[in-house]
């Protein structure tokens, strides 16, 4: 009679392996998603800031233009 | 850009003479500075001895086992001391503003690489030349075999060739000194491995057939990395 080997039950390791694989891939995808979301939030914030900046710069330019117009009309009156 | 083209024009006219002169000048400058202060060599030497001491306690070997780890201990020591030397050598360059001065000179960038490579190599070899007899005396083993000397030479060349390039990079980062071992050890692993194998082979008195492969590997590594580092060095020291 020959000795019949039984196949060892290593399914626990297999499950561990696949679970870990999916977890690592999942974490990586999540990290990309979160980073992307953060960058988009930064962008909206920065866009907002830029708009405020250009608005501020527009204001004094507008008031300066108004002043110039006023003094111009004054001069013409004299 | 204009400066570079003028420099290149100047170089192409006086090409090779200028190149080797520059290398010689850099090496000479480093050697003279070092032999005035012994700053690098003393640090590397003391450090090497301390490392040997630590290994002695850490491994606590009987005479027989000690023989089998001699090659490993030696190369670990050389690697650590080498890192120290490379770091300091480049840091000195940067701190004293010598690097900027060299860059302003109408010299091919790769001459700077070769100059630093050779001076770093000389310092490493000097330290090894002192550690080797010291180890022989402390552990009563005869390390003076021509084969071993050859391996030490080839290994040091390989280690310093990459080390000089990586040190030039790491000294320009925020993390400076700390970064060099992180960059260097994985890359230099092949050199260290081949060197240990070859050294061990010579110390054991193994067949030449067993030693020829690591030696060829060392030679190959040296050639590949000297060539690559020299070609790529320009990109490291641009302004």
């Amino acid at each position, binding site marked *: 009679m020959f000795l019949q080997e039984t196949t060892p039950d290593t399914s626990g390791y297999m499950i561990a*392996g696949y679970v870990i694989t999916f977890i690592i891939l999942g974490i990586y995808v999540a990290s990309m998603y979160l980073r992307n979301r953060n960058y988009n939030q*930064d962008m909206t914030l920065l866009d907002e800031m830029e708009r405020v900046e250009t608005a501020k710069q527009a204001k004094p330019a507008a008031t300066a233009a108004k002043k110039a117009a006023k003094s111009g009309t004054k001069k013409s009156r004299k | 850009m204009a400066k570079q083209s003028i420099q290149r024009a100047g170089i192409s006219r006086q090409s090779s003479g200028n190149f080797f002169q520059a290398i010689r000048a850099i090496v000479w400058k480093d050697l003279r500075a070092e032999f005035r202060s012994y700053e690098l060599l003393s640090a590397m030497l003391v450090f090497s001895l301390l490392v040997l001491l630590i290994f002695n306690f850490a491994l606590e070997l009987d005479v027989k086992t000690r023989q089998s780890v001699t090659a490993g201990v030696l190369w670990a020591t050389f690697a650590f001391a080498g890192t120290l030397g490379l770091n300091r050598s480049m840091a000195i360059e940067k701190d004293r503003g010598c690097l900027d001065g060299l860059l302003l000179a109408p010299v091919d960038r790769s001459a700077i690489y070769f100059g630093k490579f050779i001076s770093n190599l000389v310092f490493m070899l000097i330290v090894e030349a002192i550690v080797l007899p010291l180890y022989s005396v402390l552990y009563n083993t005869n390390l003076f075999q021509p084969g071993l000397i050859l391996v030490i030479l080839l290994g040091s060349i390989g280690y310093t060739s990459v080390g000089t390039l990586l040190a030039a990079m790491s000294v320009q980062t925020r993390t400076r000194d700390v970064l060099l071992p992180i960059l260097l050890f994985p890359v230099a692993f092949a050199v260290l491995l081949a060197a240990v194998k070859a050294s061990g082979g010579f110390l054991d008195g193994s067949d030449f057939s067993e030693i020829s492969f690591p030696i060829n*590997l060392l030679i190959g590594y040296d050639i590949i990395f000297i060539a690559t580092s020299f070609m790529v060095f320009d990109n490291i020291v641009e302004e």
Partner: protein
Amino acid sequence: MNSKPLALKILDAVSLLLLLAAAYLAIFVAPTEKVMGDVQRVFYFHIGTAWVALVGFVFTAGLSVIYLVTKDLKWDRIQVAAVEVSVVFFLITIILGSIWARPAWNTWWTWDPRLTTAAITELIYIAYFMLRQGIDDPDRRARFGAVYALIGGLSAPITFFAIRLFRTIHPVVIAGTNAEAEGTFSMTPEMRSAFFFALFAFTIIFIDLFWNRIRLGETQDKVEQLKLKVTM
């Protein structure tokens, strides 16, 4: 903030499906290996991720050369994506290798040549990120990164050959035989199909993650530029 191109959205879905399909094939369809049992099934993903990661690393070295020649930062962005995705895949490779090793060789780790080279290669590319982190100037960061990736890429195969000096217990499944390798098995046709499917699936998954990562890098660059503009 451009929306994802349709092609990429489709690729995302396809990649996920392929991943699940490859897992299904490996776990339920492929036959059980006689000597090791079920743990051998991790082999399909182990080789799948290894193959893709190594190609990724070689690709990275090529990108270094392209960047250093063209000095176009676009290639730097692509390189970062390639390295990052490769690092993740190779990490999976190493962990799966360790999980396979435990029942097969009765140890979680061994300083065997392939494993050691794998660990070192992974460390090289982690060092790549540490190098980049220490540099603020984008141009210098790109240059240094490219140089290191090139040097690292050149050293990896040399390291592998260097360690081949030593005997290995790592199984050699495809190239030749090694009498001392434990855990070697020969593949049946069913195993072969699961194996090649896994290779194919991971190639697609790599491309998907890689493309996504490049887009992330583009967004990042836009944010950096905008930051500079606003704080001027």
